[in-house]
């Protein structure tokens, strides 16, 4: 499999599958109007506050994504979700897409669980990051690598 050629965005698309979004990668993409690097996105979200890697943030992504256009992401943060102590926001980011942001989810105690799931596009192999803001203003993080292969050329 000419995997590296895929990452250079050469590969064609099968009749039904969605195009592998290699154009999303920061270094290859023309500047989209929402382009923002991972570091800049984290800064914008945290205001420069410290972020702690935490086991309380369970991030589930596939180790290998056959199709970079549809990568399932699940985030579950251990939290009582009471008024006094709850997850305020879950931010899903990627480290190498031209726009590092995927979704910002503002939760409330009525959610009952600090949980969010979605499917994202990854332009190539990179990390998916769950950046979590707690009600006490602290920030937690979990990151996992996803290898993006596009199954079969043409």
């Amino acid at each position: 499999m000419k995997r590296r050629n895929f990452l250079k965005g050469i590969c064609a698309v099968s009749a039904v599958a969605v195009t592998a979004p290699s154009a999303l990668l920061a270094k290859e993409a023309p500047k989209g109007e929402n382009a923002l690097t991972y570091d800049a996105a984290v800064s914008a979200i945290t205001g420069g506050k410290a972020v702690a890697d935490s086991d309380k943030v369970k991030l589930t992504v596939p180790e290998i994504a056959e199709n970079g256009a549809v990568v399932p992401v699940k985030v579950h943060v251990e939290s009582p979700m009471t008024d006094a102590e709850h997850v305020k926001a879950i931010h899903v980011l990627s480290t190498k897409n031209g726009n590092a942001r995927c979704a910002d989810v503002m939760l409330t105690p009525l959610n009952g669980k600090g949980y969010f799931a979605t499917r994202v596009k990854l332009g190539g192999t990179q990390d998916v990051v769950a950046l979590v803001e707690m009600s006490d203003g602290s920030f937690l993080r979990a990151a996992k690598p996803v290898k993006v292969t596009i199954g079969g050329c043409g």
Partner: protein
Amino acid sequence: MAEARKSMIKFKPKKFKVGDTIKVDFIVIHPMDTGLKKDKKTGEVKPAHFIDSITFSLDGKPFTTMKVWETVSTNPYFSVNLKVPGKGKITVDYTDNTGEKNSKSKKLKPKG
């Protein structure tokens, strides 16, 4: 005039009681174009066209809001939880970057 979008709200499990924490899934048909791809037929870049904001409400009161970017997959799927307080109506209001607004509702009917 904007065409009405197909979307679906699903509760998991389907049968639940007051006090249970259930999953609320929302799926909508939308291209989520990034603005970085060319239309194969015309050779023109397809403009960015993606859902950028979603609000989940119960009887008109928001309990989850989302800011969504073009990096979310086409025909997007979103899932959050809800601790069921009683009977009510769940509404998902969503807008996209062209200003198109849509809404989907589903009755919340706990048993017991």
